[in-house]
C-alpha cells in the first residue's frame, strides 16, 4: 500500500515556490526527481535539503517529485514537510531548518508601531525582501489571507521563515487563526519567539487570557523567557463593547487594533473611504486603549493605488488618537510613516515645552512656564510623549533636541 501527500503550488505564475508530491512506499529506497529552473545552480542544495527532511521524518522508501521555481531552502523544506505530514508521516527528530538568521532581541512595550506590513502566510516570496522596506513590523498572517485547506502549510512556512528570513529592524508579528485553531498555531510559532501575536476577532477578555496561558505554557516547555506581546483585533460590535476589558485582560497586551472589513460586515454596512460608519467603533477602540495605557492602532487602507486617499486616511487616524495602521503593500509604508510623524511646528513647540519642563525640574520649580505663559501638566505630558515618539522615529537625535 502506498500513501501520497502533496504540497506547494503549481502554475505559470509561481515564483520562489515549488510543488512537492511524496509517495511513501514500503520498499525501493528513496527516489528523488527534481525539476528546477535553478537546477544548474542549486541542484545539489535541493538534494541536500530534501534528504535532510526525509531523514528527520525517518522516511526510507519514498518517491519524491519536486517541481521547483526557484524556492529558497526554507521554503523547499517547509513544502516537503507539509507533503509528508499530509501523507500521515510524523517527524522522528527536529524537522526544522537550522536558523540562518540570529534571533532578534525582544521588543519594547512602547515600541514605535506606525506601520505593520501584512504578509500572507502561504506566500513566502513576499517575505524575502519585506524587511528592506523598513516597516515598523511585519505580520506573518495565518488567518484571513490563508485558504482553509492551506492552514497547515502556512504554519510550517511561517515557522521556517521566523528561523530563516531576515526581517531587518521590523518587529516580527504573527496573526494566528481564531480560537481554538489559533491555539494550535501558537504551538508551532511560539517556540520561534515572534515578538507579538495578533489575536483576530477578539470579543471577550477570556480569549486573550487563553492565548496568554498557552503562550506561557509553550515557553515554559521550551525554556524560553522573553516577552511575547499581544495585540487583540476588535472586529465586531460585541468586541467594541468589550474593548476596555480586552485591552486590560493581561499585562502582555501592548496595543489594541480594529479590523474594519469584518466590523462593517458585522454591523451590516458598507466600508467607505471616509470611514464615517466606523467612527464610533474606532473612537471607542482609541479610548479603551488609552484608558488601558496601551497603543491604539488603526485598520488598513485597502486601495493600494490610491496614495492620496491613504494619506488622508492616515492623517485622520492620527488626529483621532491612533498611533499606527496596517499596510497591505510596501509602498504604503512611507506615506504612513509621514502621516504619523509629528509636523515640524508641532515638534518645535513640544521641544520648547519639554525644555521648559526640564528647566523647571532642575530648578525645583513646581510650575512649568514658557515665557510668561504657564504650561498645564497635560500639555507637558503630551509634549513628552510626542518628543519620545519623534526620537523613536529618528526625527530628532536620541540624546539631543531638548534645548529647543
Amino acid at each position: 500500500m502506498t500513501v501520497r501527500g502533496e504540497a506547494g503550488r503549481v502554475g505559470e505564475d509561481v515564483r520562489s515556490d515549488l510543488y512537492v508530491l511524496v509517495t511513501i512506499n514500503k520498499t525501493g529506497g528513496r527516489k528523488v526527481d527534481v525539476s528546477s529552473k535553478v537546477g544548474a545552480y542549486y541542484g545539489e542544495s535541493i538534494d541536500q535539503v530534501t534528504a535532510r527532511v526525509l531523514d528527520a521524518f525517518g522516511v526510507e522508501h519514498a518517491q519524491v517529485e519536486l517541481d521547483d521555481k526557484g524556492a529558497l531552502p526554507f521554503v523547499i523544506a517547509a513544502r516537503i514537510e507539509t507533503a509528508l505530514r499530509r501523507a500521515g508521516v510524523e517527524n522522528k527528530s527536529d524537522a526544522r531548518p537550522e536558523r540562518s538568521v540570529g534571533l532578534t532581541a525582544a521588543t519594547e512595550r512602547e515600541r514605535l508601531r506606525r506601520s505593520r506590513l501584512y504578509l500572507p502566510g502561504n506566500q513566502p516570496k513576499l517575505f524575502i525582501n519585506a524587511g528592506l522596506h523598513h516597516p515598523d513590523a511585519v505580520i506573518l498572517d495565518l488567518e484571513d489571507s490563508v485558504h482553509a485547506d492551506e492552514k497547515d502549510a502556512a504554519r510550517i512556512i511561517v515557522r521556517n521563515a521566523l528561523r530563516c528570513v531576515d526581517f531587518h529592524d521590523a518587529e516580527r508579528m504573527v496573526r494566528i487563526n481564531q480560537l481554538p485553531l489559533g491555539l494550535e498555531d501558537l504551538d508551532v510559532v511560539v517556540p520561534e519567539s515572534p515578538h507579538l501575536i495578533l489575536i483576530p476577532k477578539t470579543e471577550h477578555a477570556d480569549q486573550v487570557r487563553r492565548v496568554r496561558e498557552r503562550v506561557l505554557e509553550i515557553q515554559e516547555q521550551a525554556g524560553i523567557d522573553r516577552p511575547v506581546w499581544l495585540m487583540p483585533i476588535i472586529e465586531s460590535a460585541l468586541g467594541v463593547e468589550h474593548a476596555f476589558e480586552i485591552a486590560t485582560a493581561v499585562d502582555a497586551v501592548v496595543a489594541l487594533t480594529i479590523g474594519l472589513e469584518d466590523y462593517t460586515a458585522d454591523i451590516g454596512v458598507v466600508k467607505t473611504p471616509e470611514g464615517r460608519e466606523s467612527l464610533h467603533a474606532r473612537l471607542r477602540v482609541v479610548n479603551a486603549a488609552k484608558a488601558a495605557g496601551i497603543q491604539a492602532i488603526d485598520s488598513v487602507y485597502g486601495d493600494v493605488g490610491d496614495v492620496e486617499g491613504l494619506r488622508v486616511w492616515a492623517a485622520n487616524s492620527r488626529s483621532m488618537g491612533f498611533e499606527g495602521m496596517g499596510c497591505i503593500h510596501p509602498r504604503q509604508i512611507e506615506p504612513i510613516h509621514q502621516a504619523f510623524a509629528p509636523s515640524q511646528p508641532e515638534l518645535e513647540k513640544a521641544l520648547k515645552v519639554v525644555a521648559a519642563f526640564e528647566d523647571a525640574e532642575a530648578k525645583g520649580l513646581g510650575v512649568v512656564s514658557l515665557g510668561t505663559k504657564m504650561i498645564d501638566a497635560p500639555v507637558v505630558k503630551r509634549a513628552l510623549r510626542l518628543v519620545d515618539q519623534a526620537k523613536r522615529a529618528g526625527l530628532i537625535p536620541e540624546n539631543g533636541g531638548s534645548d529647543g
Partner: protein
Amino acid sequence: MGSGMVENAAGRSVPRTVNGLDQVPYKGVGEHVPETAKHAPRIRSCRDYPASGDKRVANLATALEKCGLSDGMVISTHHHFRNGDQVALMALEAAAGLGAKDLMWFPSASFPCHEPVIDLMDRGVVHHIEGSMNGPLGRHCSEGKMRGLGVLRSHGGRWQAIQDGEVKIDIAVIAAPTADPFGNCDGSHGPSACGSLGFALADSVHAERVIVVTDNLVPFPCIPWQIQGNNVDYVVEVESVGDPSKIVSGTTQITKSPDRLLTAEYVARFIRDTGIMKDGFSFQAGAGGIALAFVQHLKEMMKAAGVKARFVRGGSTQYLVDLLKDELTDYILDGQTFDLAGVESIASDPRHVATSPFTSYNYHGKGNFASLVDATVLGATEVDVNFNANVVTHSDGVLLHGIGGWQNCLFAGCTILAIPSFRDRIPIIVDEVATVTGPSELIDVIVTERGVAINPRREDLLERVVGSDLPVRTIEEIKVEVEGIVGGPPQKAVLTDEPVAVVKWVDGTVLDTVWKVAD
C-alpha cells in the same frame, strides 16, 4: 586554451579568427588605434537610376535578383519594428525562394518573432548570424547548432563594423513605415510608425545595394527623410511590414514590484545626492522596469529642486515625453521609441530628436554623445565583485540577450547598473561573470534593493555620498548577504571549450567568448 585561442587584456580566452577573419583581441579601454580607411561601396551614377525617381519594383524577390543576390552574401535588416517585424523573414524567405545558400544574416538585433530563421539555417539558406540573439535563436547558438560563430556587437559597434569594413553588407533591406518611390524613408509616420530609423542609417550609406520595403508609399518627397533615397537602389511595396501592436506598446507600464520600485528610488536619490542632478545635466533612461520608475522619482526631485535637464537620452516613452512637456528637459535625444506617446512626440515636437548610432554611439568617430551624458542607468544579467558586467548570457552561460546600446552607454559620466540582487534564487553578484560584456573601469555604481555599491575606482563618488542616508555598502557585503539568503554560492556552470559566439568591444576588438553549453 586551444591553439586558435589567445588571452586578451581582460584575461579572457578569445579566438584569433572568427568566421575566417583575423581578429584583434581586446586591448583595454581606448588602447586600440584603427589604422585603415573607412569602407565604401562602389560609386554609383545617376545614369543607372530612373530620372523619374521611381525605383519601385514588383516584389522583394525581383529586388534581390536585381541586386545580384548570390550565395554567401551578407544581408542586413533592422529591429526598429522589434517583435512586430515581418520584413527580415520576408527578405530571407525571398532569398531562399531564389535558391540562395550560405547567407550571413546581419540584423541590428533579433527578436523572438525571428525564430523561423532557425529553420532557414537548417535548410542551408542562412549560414550564421552576426547580431544579437535572444530567446530561441540564442539557445540555438549556445547549443552549437550554428555553422559559423555568432558575433555580438553593440549598436555603436555595429556602426563601427560596417564603417570600418569588418562587415561588408551586400544587400541592406530597410523596412520603412513611410517611404516615397525614390527611397526616402521616415519612421515617425504611417500605420507602422516606430519613431527613429537610425539603426538602418549605416547600412544605407555603406551597403553595396539598398532595398526599401514599405506598406505606406507616399509621393515624393517623404518628409522627414531619415533615410535618403540617394542611397537606395529599389523600393518594394508590400501589404504590411509588421504588427503595429508589437512594434510599440500602447502605454508603457511602470513596474509594480516593490523591490524594483525601491531600487529605482535609490537610483534617483543617488543621482540627486551626488550632485549629478543639477541645472543643465543630462541622463539616459531605457524602457526597463527600473529605468522607467527611477525617472518618476527623479522627476519629483527635479521639480522640488527647480532643476531642468539639457537633454534626456532614451529609449523614449510617455515618461520622457512628460518631462519634455513639463519643461523639465530641453530635448529628448531618441535612439528608439517604445510607446505611442513617444511616436506622437517624435513626429510632432521638434525638441524630440531622432538620433542614429553614429551621433550617439560610434566609437570610431570624432567623438559621440554617449560620453556627454552625465548619468546612465542600465541593467545587467550579472556583475562580478570587480564590477565587470554581463548582459548577453545568464550565469549558466546560455546566450539570451543582445548588447544593444549598453556597451556604448558605459562611457557616460556615471554608469549605474540597477539590478535585483538575486532572481529566482540566482545571485546576480558573482566572483566571475560568465561573459564579460562591460569592463569594470567603466562601471561605476551597482544599485540593488539591498543597497548601493560604488566602484572603489570612483573615489569622487564615494566622497560625494558621505552624509547621504543612502544604504551605501561594498559589493562584497551585498554578495555575502545574498548568498546567505539563497543557500550559498551557485554551482559552477558546465560549459565546453568550444566557442559558439564572440562579444565585440566598441572598437571592434574581441572582448569575450560565448561557449557551447554542455548537453
